[in-house]
């Protein structure tokens, strides 16, 4: 029976997270608009945009290679695969043994490289500029992510996300300073990876500021829909990851039947909503920083992560 539940919960999780991605983006935009005193578009607007874009024929440059046509599918596929691995409402899903934090980071890197290469495909200055900046930011975000993973791995004994969530839900680890520092480091990485304010502005096409948009400037039609969908899925994935690790409240344990899933689902929607609200408030309150200030931002995240790990060394050395 447990196998059936694990497969069912996995299928439900994939459907849920794929469906939640456009809605979450829509809700986030709506919340930001409200906070800034605008009415804002309907929360389902991103979904409508995706469906509209899908109907249009993409226009490619004359010298575009097969990379331009294949990369959107690869990036969207990698995002779906990564999202399938991050626990949401229940633990012990069918793919739980696969859900390693570093594998998830690797799949996200795969999508990032696909996007950078697509940006460089036709040889326009914008695409190259965006790709160079994106890869540079990622180079600084990666160490912060791995150092945060170090703290989690010390506490949970593994880098498996499902096991980490389980350890934090049931292990009675309590509140720890190191966990707080790891949370801050992971938040900074999440902001950088999703091209949110203050690293990048998701709503702008202003040339001097953009990173993510610069790479997909050439994309149109279904290709653009796939890029947008992959970006939405990444944001959902990161919020789900943060809530699974740091807010495991209400998550159904491994092997639990559907009656506990309902509680898990409600808790997950509430947590994602709260995170979206917090992100909207943060983005409304802060301005985008200069491109070459980003290393300081990510460097601070790395140092906080290292500090968390060192605190753990000291505390485990004392006990």
């Amino acid at each position, binding site marked *: 029976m447990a196998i059936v539940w694990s497969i069912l919960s996995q299928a439900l999780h994939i459907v849920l997270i794929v469906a939640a991605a456009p809605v979450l983006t829509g809700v986030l935009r709506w919340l930001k608009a409200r906070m800034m005193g605008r009415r804002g578009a309907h929360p389902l607007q991103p979904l409508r945009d995706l469906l509209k874009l899908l109907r249009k024929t993409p226009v490619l440059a004359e010298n575009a*290679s097969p*990379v331009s046509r294949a990369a959107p599918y690869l990036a969207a596929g990698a995002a779906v695969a990564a999202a399938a691995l991050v626990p949401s409402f229940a633990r012990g899903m069918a793919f739980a043994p696969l859900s390693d934090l570093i*594998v998830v980071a690797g799949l996200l890197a795969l999508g990032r490289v696909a996007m950078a*290469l697509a940006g460089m495909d036709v040889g326009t200055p914008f695409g190259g500029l965006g790709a160079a900046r994106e890869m540079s930011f990622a180079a600084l975000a990666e160490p912060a992510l791995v150092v945060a993973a170090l703290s989690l791995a010390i506490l949970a004994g593994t*880098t498996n996300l499902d096991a980490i969530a389980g350890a934090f839900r049931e292990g009675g680890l309590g509140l720890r300073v190191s966990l707080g520092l790891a949370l801050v480091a992971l938040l900074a990485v999440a902001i950088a990876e999703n091209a949110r304010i203050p690293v990048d502005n998701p709503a702008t096409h202003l040339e001097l500021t953009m990173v993510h948009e610069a790479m997909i400037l050439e994309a149109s039609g279904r290709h653009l829909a796939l890029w947008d969908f992959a970006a939405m899925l990444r944001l959902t994935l990161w919020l789900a990851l943060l809530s699974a690790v740091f807010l495991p409240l209400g998550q159904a344990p491994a092997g639990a039947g559907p009656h506990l899933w309902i509680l898990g689902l409600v808790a997950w929607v509430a947590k994602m909503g709260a995170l979206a609200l917090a992100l909207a408030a943060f983005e409304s309150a802060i301005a985008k920083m200069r491109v070459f200030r980003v290393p300081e931002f990510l460097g601070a995240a790395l140092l906080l992560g290292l500090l968390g790990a060192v605190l753990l060394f000291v505390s485990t050395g004392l006990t």
Partner: protein
Amino acid sequence: MLTLLLLATGSLLALAVAAPVLARHEAGGRAVFGGCAAASLLIAMGAIGGLLGSPEAADLPFGPPWGPARVAIDALSAWFLLILGLAGTAASIFALGSLHGPEAPRRLVPYPLFLAGMAVTLLAADGFTLLLGFEAMSLASWVLVAHDHEEEANRRAARIYLGFAGFGGLSLILAFGMLAGGAGDVAFAALREAPPDGWRAALVLALVLAGAGSKAGLAPLHVWLPLAHPAAPSHVSALMSGAMTKVALYVLARFAFDLMGTAQPLWLGAPLVALGAASAVIGALRANLEDDIKTLLACSTIENVGLISIGLGLALAFRGADLPALAALAAGAALLHALNHAVFKTLLFLAAGEVLHGALSRRIDRLGGLIHRMPVTAWAALAGVAAAASLPPLSGFASEWLLLQALLASWRVGDLAFQMGAAAATALAALAAALAAAAMVRFWGLVFLGRPRTPRAAGAEEGGRLVQAALILPAGLTVLFGLLPGLMLDLAEPALRLMTRAAAPRAGFVAIGAAEGGARYWPLLVALLLAAAIGAVVWAVRRRAPTGVARGPIWDCGFIAAPHHLPFGDPSTQPTASGFGQPLRRMLGTSLLVAREGVTMPPPGATGPAILHSGFDDPALVALEGPVPRWRDAAAAQAERLRDLSIRQCLGLTFGAVVLMLALLAWLEAR
């Protein structure tokens, strides 16, 4: 198996001897390179036999005056022979395919000798034979680095390389001397009997790090590598980066894990981790700033050698801290990454050689858009690039995953200073891996994507069948090793047992695991999941979207249309090599590599252009090229004074030397 391997090595030596005669014939080059490919394949097969079979040893019927030359094969040497065999096969097939007409003897003779030297180093079972092979490898590759000696840059590269090779050889001789002590027996079996301890162990490790580390490209003795590797012909560059650095790492591992005994303290691993982390970051960062594709790849080799060295150092430390399972995990990561790097770097260098052959340039700013003209090279190179950027499910990700797991477990060594150092090394290794991804995107994107930057790049042509086969073979292996790292780790099992007296945590054929019950990585399942996800996305899009695409002229971001003599647009509106490296040059280069940027403005009113210039210096090269020539000149000036000595003073010098020798002898006898 040993007989087979000796036979292959002997035939390589015979090829080297016969090469001057063969070079006179039209088909001579083909015979030499074909023979090398066959011998390399034999070596690879013999190595697999050696990994599956039991260790063998033999005394050759010839050798130095004091005894026979000893050879042996055990699991550790067999693993590195497998690396040599695979890289040698691909490189030799490439050389065979890119032959056009007769080849000069000075390019033909050293190549089999180079391969044979590496094989002898790996097969040696005494210090003398090992040094013989090591020096043959150094000298033969030096000849190949200097083959194109009309160019000043190549002469400089060869000169610096020779200096480093001499320094490395000397350090290794001293290391063997320190290890053998007064007894003077350099057979490995005798060396194992008397492992060094205390300061002697530290000194031996320092000498080995100077000798083998400089050959492998560990910072700060890496400066020759980005100069020498690109100067050689491409198939030799591939071997130097793919195989020769691994042979040097084998010597390092042979000393640290085997000859120096198993009862070494925790701290022996620390220098390897520190130097490895420094090399990884410096190499990966330089790879983002170089604008010559072969130099870029050579810098990426420094990075990967650094990662392997971190793995070896961690294994040493874990073994010293009595954590055998973790030691096997770290050693497994190092060995697996050595194999994976050898295969994908061979592939990338051969692809760079094909680009050089097809588009006649190594400079990124003269290439571009080659995916349209050289699709096979481009797609094969993409496999290597993705592996080098450690993307799942390719081979580089599997071994770097294992390495990260070993680093993440390093806190189990209960020493606070080591824990903090290892945490820093973890951050640096992750930084290096991400920098390598940026460098590889820059390499592949600028060379194969975009528009041609020169007419020659626009007219590039794909190589022949054999060349394509030489690219597809390592590309296939990169994918295969990526999907089946568990299988390769099982194959390496005897080597891990030899190094750490423990087996790596087993997770079956298809998975690799960090520890019992710890994290697991299933590459096949991840690949299947990825394929299923992409399939689902394609299916979902197909249902709603129209098929086909419309084509339109490129939008050049508002630049005015290019004139008619530039059919591919103005190349200067494309990202350049240094432009693409600009963010990282500013973020990290200014502090780590003394990078600089500046603008020279024309005086007010003048119509000249403003010139933007940027560049960087490797601090290690600056440190080397500053004082060393000064010392050399000072020593030469002192030596010059000897020429003016009178006959009495000359005789006095000789007499003094003899007395000194006798005194030394008397002192040694008395002890």
